[in-house]
C-alpha cells in the first residue's frame, strides 16, 4: 500500500507538470493539473493509511 501510494504521488506530479509543458489550452491544462493533484491526494491517503497503526484485533 505504501509503495502504491508513493507511485501515485510521483504519477500525480508528473501529470501536473506534463500538462503545463505539453498542453496549450488553459482549460485542458487546468483539468490535467487537477487530475494530477487528485492522483496525489489518493497517493497520500494510501501512504498515510499504510503507516496508520492497525487496531489489535486486525493485526
Amino acid at each position, binding site marked *: 500500500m505504501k509503495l502504491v501510494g*508513493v507511485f501515485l504521488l510521483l504519477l500525480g506530479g508528473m501529470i501536473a*507538470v506534463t500538462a*503545463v509543458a505539453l498542453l496549450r489550452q488553459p482549460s485542458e*491544462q487546468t483539468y490535467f493539473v487537477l487530475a494530477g493533484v487528485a492522483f*496525489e491526494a489518493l497517493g*497520500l491517503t494510501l501512504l498515510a493509511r499504510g503507516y496508520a*497503526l492497525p487496531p489489535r484485533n486486525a493485526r
Partner: protein
Amino acid sequence: MSFVFCLLCILLLPLATAGLALMHQGLGRSRSAAHTMVASLCVLAVASIVFISFGFCTAGVNGGPAHTFLIAGNPWNLIAAERPFAHGIPFDGTPSALVLCFQFFTVGLAAIIPVSTGSDRWRLGPMCLSTALLAAITFPLFTHWAWCGGWLSQLGVNFGLGAGFLDAGGSSTIQVIGGLTALSLAWILGGRRGKYSDDGFAAAIPGHNIVLVLFGCLLALIGWIALNSAGTMLFYAATPALIPKILLNTVLSASASCLAAVFVTRMRYGKPDASLIANGWIAGLVASSASSAFVSLGSSLFIGFVAGAGVMYLVEFLELKLHIDDPGGAISVHAGAGLWGVSAAGVFSTLPTLSGRGQLLAQIIGIAALLGFMLPLIHGLNLLLNVFVKQRVDSDGDRQGMDVRELGAGAYPEFVVHGDEFLPR
C-alpha cells in the same frame, strides 16, 4: 530594494527560529526538554554548515548559473550550478549576498520544524544526518524552483500563468518542506511509548511548559514579520514602502488564526486549549507568509481564520485517525497551514499583473510539485538513512527519556523526577 533595510530584516530572522525552538521544548515532555533544545542548536549548526558547503550549489540566486533544459520548446530551469562554499558570490552590496544570507537563516528554520515531531524518540546523531539531507538536497532544490529563477518561479514568463509561483515569505519553501520532512519522520519513528494503546486509542500527553510555548509565539511574530518583509524585498523587488502592509497582514493573519483556535477549542472542548492556541498563532503566521504583501487586510483576516480553524481539526485528524504522533503539531501547523497559504495566494492576490485563473493554477502546480516530487524525495532519503542508522531510540531510551539517555542528565535536576506518569502502569 534597500540593502540596509533588507539586511536588518534578515538579522531579525533568527527570532522565528528561537520562537519555534522554545515551542518545541515546551510542547514536549520534561524528561526530553534539554535534548530538544540541544537538538535545535545542533540542527541549526548542521544546516548552516551543510547549506553553505553544498546546499547553495543547488539553490543559487536569481540570474545565477543554472542547469536549464529545453522541453517542448520551453526552458525548464531545474537546478542551480553555483560553486561550493558560495565561491563567486560577491560581497559588495549586491542582492546576491543578501539572498545567500536569507537562505542561510531560513534553512535553519525549515530544519528545526521536524525536531518537534521527533521529540522524545529521535536520536541526536540521525537527527543531524537527516538535517544534512534537508540542507543539502531537499530545501535547496525547492528553494531554487520557487525563489531563485527555477521553473516554478518562471511559470508566468514561460507559460503565462499569472506571475509564476508566488511565495514571498516561504510558506512552501520553508514551512511545507519542513512539515513534509516532519511527516516523513513521524511515519518512520512511529508513536511515543504509551501514546497509543493496543486498541489504537490515543493517550493525551500534554506539553510540560506552556509559558515557554506562548513566549515562543511572541518571539516568532517578530521573526515572521522580518521573514515576510525580507522575502518580499529580495524575490519580488518590493520597496520598504510595502513593509507596513506586510506587517499588518502578518499580525492580522496570526490574530485571526489565534482567535479561530480559541473559538474552535472552546466550542469542542469546553475551554480554550493553550497549546492548540499557540499552534493556531503559528499557523496564521505560516499561512500569511506566501502573500502578505499582495493581499488586502480583509483577505489576510480570512486566510488566518481558515488556517487557525483548519489546523485544529487537522491536528485531531492526524492524531486520532491516522495515528501520527506529532507532539508539537508541526505537521498540521507547517505543512497544513503552509499549503493553505500557498493556495490562498492564488485566490486573494491583488497584484494588477496577475490573472486570476493563471495565478491559482501556478499555485496548484507548486502544490503538485511539493506533494508529487518533494514528499517522495524527502521520504525516500529518510527511509534510506533509517536503513543505515536507526533513527528511533531503543526501548530503554524511550522509557528513560532522551535527556538521561543521550545527555546523561535531565533539564530540571532539582525538581521532581517524573516517572512514566502518562504511561499505563
